């Protein structure tokens, strides 16, 4: 890789009891690049993301971010890493007890100690970046549609101008048109910030649009990793089947009970 890796995973293992979810994940995310981790349900995409963020501790292996191994880093180093990351959750994970602008400004007020009035102005600017009017700022997250909640989640993720962005299934649960709007916003925001991005998705249209590189996770390992432009030329039968969405193929789809 020509540019130094912003995030580097080596031989990452994670098991829950007898269930081995990650069995030696190796992955590099170059600075300023956007990587999509694709794979079927239950292949460990979310677990990989949670291990990178430190929400789960891997059983084995290293996760190096900006040259620092997060599996052995101190709490302050870990907090410093989180301060330069933003995350869009699958269900947006907006705080019900706070208004929309308070959600967007949360990282600015609680994480960076910004005065609420200034943070509110910035939050409204961020809402505008994701195509939402200032009118929604005082609403409760529960009163928004799924697509609007995702956009608020995106505004919250980019509010602190992070160096690294994580997107967990950004288009899941919303209609294809709104999904495309979210994809465009992710591309725009990531480029404007110059951030490195990791997206986990099973939506190939989303992966093609958002990512520079695609890594396919299957049975706890990355089985294919390459530029997004090479997806359709690959001779990897697993990736071919996943991209085509075929039932027949080498992927074990666990459909025994159907």
């Amino acid at each position: 890789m020509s540019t130094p890796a912003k995030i580097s995973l080596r031989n990452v293992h994670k098991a829950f009891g007898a269930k081995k979810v990650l069995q030696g994940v190796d992955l590099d995310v170059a600075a300023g690049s956007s990587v999509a981790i694709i794979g079927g349900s239950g292949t460990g995409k979310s677990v990989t993301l949670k291990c990178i963020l430190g929400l789960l501790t891997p059983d084995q292996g290293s996760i190096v971010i900006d040259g620092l191994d997060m599996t052995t880093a101190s709490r302050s180093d870990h907090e410093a890493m989180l301060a330069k990351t933003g995350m869009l959750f699958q269900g947006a994970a907006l705080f019900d007890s706070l208004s929309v602008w308070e959600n967007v400004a949360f990282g600015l007020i609680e994480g960076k100690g910004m005065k609420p009035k200034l943070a509110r102005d910035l939050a409204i600017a961020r809402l505008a970046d994701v195509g939402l009017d200032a009118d929604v700022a005082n609403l409760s997250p529960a009163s928004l549609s799924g697509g609007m909640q995702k956009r608020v989640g995106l505004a919250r993720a980019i509010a602190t101008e992070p160096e690294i962005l994580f997107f967990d299934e950004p288009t899941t649960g919303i209609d294809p048109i709104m999904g495309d709007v979210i994809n465009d916003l992710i591309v725009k925001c990531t480029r404007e910030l110059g951030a490195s991005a990791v997206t986990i998705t099973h939506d190939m249209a989303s992966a093609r649009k958002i990512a520079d590189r695609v890594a396919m996770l299957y049975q706890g390992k990355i089985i294919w990793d390459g530029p997004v432009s090479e997806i359709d030329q690959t001779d990897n039968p697993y990736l071919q089947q996943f991209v085509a969405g075929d039932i027949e193929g080498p992927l074990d789809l666990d459909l025994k009970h159907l």
Partner: protein
Amino acid sequence: MPIFAPVGRMFLSFLALVGRVTVFAGRTIGHMIAPPIYFRLIFKQMREIGYFSLPVVAMTTLFAGMVLALQSYSGFSRFSAESAVATVVVISMTRELGPVLAGLMVAGRVGAAIAAEIGTMRVTEQIDALVTLSTNPFKYLVVPRVIAGLITLPILVLIGDIIGVLGGYLVGVNKLGFNEASYIRSTFQYLEQLDVVSGLVKAAVFGFIITLMGCYHGYNSRGGAQGVGQATTNAVVSSSILILISNYVVTELFFTR
């Protein structure tokens, strides 16, 4: 032995639970004394736990004081000790009924609400979101609730004690024919500072237990709506049992000489 194996498993899982709750309590206390402290959230929780629990505590203690006056009068009249009614009401309310009834009512109202709110935050990834926004969930969610419980329960119990005594007074004067002035004099004649203080200490202990159990079960809930429902039930049941156990322990500490 097939008979002993399940018993042993249950005992071991109980010990593991005690260990997890103890570690959770230790972490909570550690975060309570280390900055940052979210005072704004503490005041908000004091309003939720204290102010909004006032009606239910007031109703409970009012009728407890009233029934206590009635029962003790009918019982004491068997050996001509009716004059002790006011003293019995005030000592029972301050030492036992005030803190225990308020504790149990707040456990049902607040403990369940805390477990449901934090449990929902857990299963909807809001707690993970807090972490990614550089905010410690323990400091942001658990500590304000526990501090608010520690402060507001004694205040609630003090108010409940007064209302309970008032209930006894209303029945004593209006139904049982006591003289107003003599009932009030009897109320304060044998009341000691320790009676009230021990009740307030119990209330603080119960406040800690209720909020800690609510937070613990909510924080560790798993498995969607069913998990949140289970967490809510566990929070109320465990805090109610612990209130009754700790009530005995604190009574031992104060009154065994």
